[in-house]
């Protein structure tokens, strides 16, 4: 995978991405993150919570996928009322993006999976 700073910078420029993060898969701690797009300074920053819980959720999804004999999950998307969380595993880290409801998910998916594979 490319340098985490480059990965985060590239993903954060994909239309609809509110925040892009590289997160430790085992500890759920943020390794690198982009700023929150469109967030006011007064608003509580959701990135730390999102990172920890998304990494945790991804680890559970991995176990479910393995239990179903499907192998490792390639792409995880959580659709919520006001947006989506996308997660892709990349060895010791997971890539996490928070995206708007009307984002181009195809582009987000390809860019995240490409970044995880280290392809440009």
């Amino acid at each position, binding site marked *: 995978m490319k340098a985490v700073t480059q990965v985060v910078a590239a993903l954060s420029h994909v239309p609809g991405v509110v925040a892009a993060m590289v*997160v*430790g898969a*085992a*500890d*759920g*701690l943020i390794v690198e993150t982009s700023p929150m797009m469109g967030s006011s300074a007064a608003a509580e920053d959701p990135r*730390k*919570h999102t*990172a*920890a*819980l998304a*990494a*945790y959720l991804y*680890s559970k999804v991995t176990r479910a996928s393995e239990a179903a004999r499907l192998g490792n999950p390639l792409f995880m998307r959580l659709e919520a009322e006001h947006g989506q969380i996308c997660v892709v595993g990349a060895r010791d880290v997971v890539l996490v993006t928070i995206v708007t409801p009307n984002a181009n998910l195809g582009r987000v998916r390809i860019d995240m999976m490409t970044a995880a594979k280290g392809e440009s």
Partner: protein
Amino acid sequence: MSDPTVAEAWVAAPLRRLMEDARLISGVLLYPTGRAVGQFGFSNAADVMSICALTSAINASARELGRQLDGKPFYEMHHAGAERQVFMARASATSQEFLFVGVFDRESSLGVVEIYFAEFQKALEKLRPDKQPTVPGPSGDFEGELNRSLDALFGPIGKR
């Protein structure tokens, strides 16, 4: 997973929530003097007594180490073992300070424990009865304080 046992009833709900949300195996909430306030995951008073004494000493050492290395005390510590991990941190409620030590495994993560510990701390601040600190400072009777708090958690010696 057993419910927390507490020496002060107001910490029971926040401790239970922390235990469940952060998926902790065991944990102890104590005053910096080593007096236990609540615990979960232990059935033996001697284990809690050891943990309180060690946590109190580690906290004092870490604070001093932080002061010497960084000019300010270290308040949070994490140790990752092969199977289990230990999280230790300070929590404050109004003017009262507490220490918490918790153990977790692969069913949780440091990030998850940290975010739920932050919520636990907020709950302590919100729920703490409006009164002067219960333990203003070390009384010098460390063993006595420890034994009294263990009696509150596990019952008097002979009835445990």
